[in-house]
């Protein structure tokens, strides 16, 4: 094994050696550079292997043959080796990436690069304070040099700003160092830590100065304008280095300093970190320049890690797992993104749409933003999980909340960016692809997945990359070249196969959900057969969603549950984004969903109280002061998914704009995930009271109002799919209401809703989707009279609306019957008023749907359209059959669950299934008899009418009695637009978009705050220096205030 000192000696020696070469020997010089970087990486890598795998002890390197503190010593342990490997590898990649630039600038540039990397390693290794200073100066000066490699002339300005600030930083640090030395008589970091610097007069002030100096290199808000300018203008490969390597090394330097400063500085670290994290993410929200955005994101991530460092007192042995996870995720992602930015010619975020011509690069982008946001299965996810749990266990909930808020902001702008890539105008001409650069980027992707695997292994929660459903979904990535039909067969086979395999392991309750999600998904996928070509991106996304769903159902531990939750959220986001105009809606879906997911995370974390391996079932044992809060957090999180009123505004756009076969998936299936979560929550935690308020009562109100608002809004929609989408809000409100009733039948009703809503909403979405496909519009008033042209779609819609409205004899009635029986035992009755009002309103929109689309006057332009494609009709017909079967024998699905639910409500409420009659404590119901009686009456009358009027001829379209006029234009005769005008007059005030306005105001507030606040970055280098000074002074005052003036 080669001593780690050779990383430094090698880098330095090679840099000097380059000076010996004739200026013309560029290739040779480049070879030496690469070889040296590779050598450095190899040394670092071999030590990392030794530490990580063989469990070697940290190596101490004593220079000058003298023991510290009398000579400088270096230490290399696991963290140091890992960081060194990270930095050298990034350096190596950067050298490869910058080949052109390095060749142009010659050996000098290569020497600077080598010294830069070497110095960073020095910063990490050294245990001597002044030596740290020297290495930091080296980093700073070489940064000054490398910034100039940019072809952007603005880099000059950025460089000089950086140097001005650096001057200030070095002064503070020097003064601090010498006073610290004076106080302790040593320059050795460990020696100082042992000497308890804070006990010496002046010592803590000296430490303060050093700390501020190094922290300033982390680019804390607001003293970071210079850093952003560098990110924006430097060569992307250097920006990557600046973010990854400098950031990592400086963080480690701060970590070492915290040893000296001791625990009293940890809160300050967290405070600075979190302020930076949130401020930078906020500012990034209004960026349009890609590299500046990445700069803000870098600043934010480093702020986050700094926050984590400030929490090391409670993180214990997980500290390196968490901080390392976030750091590595940040490193790989940021490097990758900066490298990608080098492939895009223009600098606006929207110009990245050019990437779309290269699916592989889009995949790379997705990988990187997933890494940054901390989505499963990447390291940030595991880190986020552990961090949240440890913070919550210690009651640091404010911090947890702020971290999650910042992460949400970050997700918002990153995924908005992704939306641009997928949806905006762009062509291959916007790309400047070079093999070296592409290879480097793809290399980062590989590393990202390797890290994902590694962190999964280390996590102690089980590796997500061992989960078969997830792997199955990922399998579709390499198979993207196959035609869509083949992939569709695979997907259906996968869903059905997995259901078949896991069937024995489901209990009755899980079975309902599994049946809806897996074979149910397969059924909807039948509609996907009608698509042509390869349909790139659809199958990985869809299968990711289904993988998440299938993992969710069987999740036992809270970790598995949450991982599945995020998986399905992300998968569905990609699915929704595929719609033609869905860019803003998909984003809003994602932001709300992630927001909800973060609440769930916080809820689990609070519940677990530090138990990493928390079982869902253990929610029942959560102790008193936390229980209601846990309940509230989880409930709101799940209700975000079911689009309860208040957090429903994402749903209409997302469901309406999705593709024809995606809408039923996200509506019919995905919404059930939220119900599943609520079920699990209520099953385990039951009723909870917060400040004397029964939380399930609050849920009752929310459910009722959702039902009302959803239905009301649905009747005023002109867009058929939006109508159905709002209808889902209402329907989910019913289900939520049923759950919140907290009795046997309420839950049974909610379960029945799971099945019913899946069937009829999928059917309606498919039917309407087919119509929209044929007519090319979703505006209902532009259709009309399609019944003769699209009879099968009409039948599906008719059956669908009868079922939705709950009119006997179809299965919707069963739901209503159970509902009435359920509310009989409810202990709280007021919200019923609202839910009773909501019921009939459903008729309005349902009638509108069928009337304005299929009945009334056929328009001229649609006279020749055909029935929807076979593959869209087929699942609808299967749904019709299923609906009939379920209407006749609901026991097939419900009997077992009914028994299953009995364990929660001992003794009362379950139904009796005697013969064909279903009876409750209050009433009874015989679906078969109803069907037969109505069928007989109906068919008798119909037959008679047909018989007596057997000679009737269909009349021409306009052969109607019309107040002495004979209409001749379908447009003027089809009463369809603003259909419920009187209703709007009477109750329109209830549909004021208050919630939408509220969220718009929030968004607006964030944006304008960012817009105003970011003006502090005036671009003036002196101002930046003043920021730094102000930062130091403010922290000083805070510190004095916090410590009552030492």
């Amino acid at each position, binding site marked *: 094994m080669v001593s780690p000192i050779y990383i430094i000696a090698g880098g330095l020696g090679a840099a000097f050696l380059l000076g010996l070469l004739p200026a013309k020997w560029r290739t040779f010089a480049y070879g030496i550079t690469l070889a040296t970087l590779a050598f450095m990486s190899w040394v670092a890598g071999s030590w990392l292997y030794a530490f990580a795998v063989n469990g070697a002890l940290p190596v101490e390197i004593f220079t000058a*043959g003298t023991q510290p503190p009398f000579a400088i010593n270096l230490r290399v342990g696991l963290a140091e080796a890992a960081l060194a490997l990270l930095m050298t590898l990034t350096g190596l990649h950067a050298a490869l990436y910058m080949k052109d630039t390095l060749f142009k600038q010659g050996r000098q540039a290569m020497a600077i690069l080598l010294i830069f990397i070497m110095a960073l390693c020095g910063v990490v290794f050294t245990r001597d304070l*002044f030596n740290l200073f020297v290495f930091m100066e080296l980093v700073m000066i070489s940064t000054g040099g490398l910034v100039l490699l940019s072809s952007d002339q603005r880099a000059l300005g950025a460089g000089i700003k950086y140097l001005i600030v650096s001057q200030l930083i070095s002064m503070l640090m020097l003064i601090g160092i010498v006073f610290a030395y004076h106080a302790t008589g040593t320059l050795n970091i460990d020696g100082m830590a042992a000497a308890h610097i804070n006990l010496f007069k*002046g010592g803590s002030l000296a430490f303060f100065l050093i700390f501020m100096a190094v922290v300033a290199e982390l680019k804390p808000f607001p003293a970071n304008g210079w850093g952003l300018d560098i990110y924006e203008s430097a060569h992307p490969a250097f920006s990557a280095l600046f973010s990854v390597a400098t950031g990592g090394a400086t963080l480690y330097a701060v970590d070492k300093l915290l040893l000296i400063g001791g625990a009293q500085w940890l809160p300050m670290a967290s405070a600075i970190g979190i302020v930076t994290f949130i401020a930078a993410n906020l500012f990034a929200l209004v960026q349009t320049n890609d590299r500046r955005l990445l700069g803000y994101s870098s600043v934010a991530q480093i702020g986050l890690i700094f926050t984590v460092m400030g929490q090391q007192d409670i993180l214990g042995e997980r500290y390196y797992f968490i901080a390392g996870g976030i750091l590595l995720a940040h490193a790989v992602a940021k490097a990758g993104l900066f490298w990608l930015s080098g492939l895009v010619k223009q600098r606006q975020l929207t110009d990245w749409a050019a990437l779309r011509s290269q699916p592989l690069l889009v995949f790379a982008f997705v990988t990187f933003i997933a890494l940054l946001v901390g989505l499963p299965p990447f390291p940030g996810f595991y880190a986020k999980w552990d961090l949240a749990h440890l913070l919550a266990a210690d009651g640091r909930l404010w911090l947890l909340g702020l971290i999650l808020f910042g992460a949400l902001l970050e997700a918002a702008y990153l995924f908005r960016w992704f939306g641009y890539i997928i949806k905006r105008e762009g062509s291959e001409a916007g790309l400047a692809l070079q093999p070296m650069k592409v290879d480097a980027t793809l290399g980062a992707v590989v590393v990202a997945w390797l890290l994902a695997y590694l962190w999964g292994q280390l996590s102690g929660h089980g590796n997500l990359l061992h989960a078969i459903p997830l792997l199955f979904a990922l399998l579709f990535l390499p198979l993207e070249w196959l035609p869509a039909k083949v992939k569709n067969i695979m997907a259906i086979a996968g869903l059905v196969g997995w259901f078949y395999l896991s069937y024995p392991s489901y209990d009755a309750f899980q079975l309902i959900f599994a049946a809806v999600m897996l074979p149910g998904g397969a059924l909807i996928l039948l509609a996907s057969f009608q698509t042509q070509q390869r349909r790139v991106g659809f199958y990985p996304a869809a299968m990711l969603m289904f993988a998440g769903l299938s993992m969710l159902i069987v999740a036992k531990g809270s970790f598995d549950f949450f991982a599945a939750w995020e998986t399905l959220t992300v998968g569905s986001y990609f699915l929704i984004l595929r719609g033609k105009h869905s860019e803003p809606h998909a984003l809003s879906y994602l932001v709300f969903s992630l927001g909800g997911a973060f609440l769930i995370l916080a809820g689990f974390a609070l519940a677990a109280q530090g138990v990493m391996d928390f079982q869902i079932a253990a929610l029942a044992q959560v102790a008193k002061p936390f229980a209601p809060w846990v309940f509230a957090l989880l409930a709101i999180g799940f209700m975000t998914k079911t689009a309860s009123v208040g957090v429903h505004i994402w749903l209409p756009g997302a469901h309406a704009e999705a593709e024809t076969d995606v809408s039923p998936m996200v509506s019919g299936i995905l919404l059930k995930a939220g119900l599943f979560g609520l079920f699990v929550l209520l099953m385990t935690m039951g009723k909870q009271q917060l400040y004397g308020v029964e939380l399930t009562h609050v849920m009752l109100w929310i459910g009722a109002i959702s039902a009302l608002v959803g239905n009301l809004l649905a009747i005023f929609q002109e867009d058929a799919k939006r109508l159905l989408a709002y209808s889902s809000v209402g329907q989910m409100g019913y289900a939520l209401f049923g759950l919140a009733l907290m009795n046997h039948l309420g839950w049974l009703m909610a379960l029945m809703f799971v099945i019913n809503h899946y069937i009829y909403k999928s059917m309606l979405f498919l039917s309407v989707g087919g119509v929209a496909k044929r007519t090319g519009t979703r505006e209902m008033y532009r259709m009309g009279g399609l019944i003769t042209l699209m009879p099968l779609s009409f039948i599906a819609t008719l059956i669908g609306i009868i079922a939705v409205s709950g009119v006997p004899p179809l299965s919707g009635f069963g739901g209503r019957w159970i509902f009435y029986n359920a509310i009989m035992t409810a202990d709280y009755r007021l919200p019923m008023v609202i839910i009773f009002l909501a019921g009939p309103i459903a008729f309005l929109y349902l009638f509108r749907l069928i009337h304005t689309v299929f009945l009334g006057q056929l328009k001229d332009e649609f006279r020749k359209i055909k029935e929807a494609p076979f593959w869209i009709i087929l699942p609808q017909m299967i749904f019709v059959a299923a609906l009939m079967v379920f209407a006749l024998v609901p026991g097939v699905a419900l009997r077992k669950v009914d028994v299953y639910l009995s364990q929660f409500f001992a003794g009362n409420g379950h139904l009796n299934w005697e013969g064909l009659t279903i009876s409750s404590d209050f009433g009874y119901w015989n679906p078969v008899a109803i069907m037969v009686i109505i069928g007989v009456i109906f068919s008798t009358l119909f037959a008679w009418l047909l018989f007596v009027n057997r000679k009737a001829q269909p009349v021409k379209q306009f052969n109607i009695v019309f107040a002495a006029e004979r209409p001749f234009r379908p447009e003027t005769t089809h009463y369809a637009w603003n259909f419920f005008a009187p209703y709007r007059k009477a109750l329109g005030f209830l549909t004021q978009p208050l919630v939408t306005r509220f969220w718009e105001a929030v968004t607006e507030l964030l944006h304008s705050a960012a817009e105003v606040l970011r003006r502090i970055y005036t671009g003036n280098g002196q101002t930046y220096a003043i920021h730094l000074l102000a930062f130091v002074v403010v922290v000083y005052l805070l510190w004095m205030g916090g410590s009552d003036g030492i």
Partner: protein
Amino acid sequence: MIRRFAVFLLLLALGSIFVNLLMGYVPDSELNLTARYYAEHTAQDIGAANIVTAIVITYRGLDTLGEVTVLFLTATIIGMVLSQGQKHRALQRQLPPSGELLTTGSRLLVPLILLLGAYVFLNGHLTPGGGFQGGAIIASAALLLLLTDPLRRFSHRLISVVESVSGLVFVASGVLGILYAGGFLDSRILSTGTFGALFSAGVIPVIYSFVGLKVGAEFTSMLTNLAETEQS
């Protein structure tokens, strides 16, 4: 004006931090742990009379290596930055020759200055001074030559070879320290010799000489690079 006032206020605050430092400062009456060690051990361990030099080259040799690297880096960056514009340079304007006195004086002085520089760095382990000071003195010779003849061109090649070779020697002697002495940059790969003699204190004089050469070359390189830019 607002800016000035803000700066003033901030500096006032910073000043109060400094005042706090000043108030908390108690001069040592005894050498502290580290200094005591140096005072007691330098003579027999390293064999250098100038304890500062011993610290600079041996005990804190890594700092000095870094320091040399800083200069190397700066010189390299300056070379890189300024060479970017050089290709487009127009023909040099003819400048009037400098005065007779200066020319003659410089001819006389340059060798003396070089000698002085060499003396300073060779005796760095015994007397005040060393590689950096010596290097600066050597560079002043180059400066003098530049002043007398602004169009004089120094061989970049020579400068960079001197720079690189000295740097490599420094690193190499450091590595030799691992192999033949106590560790990286241990100066005792040569015998410590007789205390107070020129060739004593291990490899210190050698290193300091090369540091001197290197520093001199780097300063010269900076100066000439700047001198060669177009005078506008």
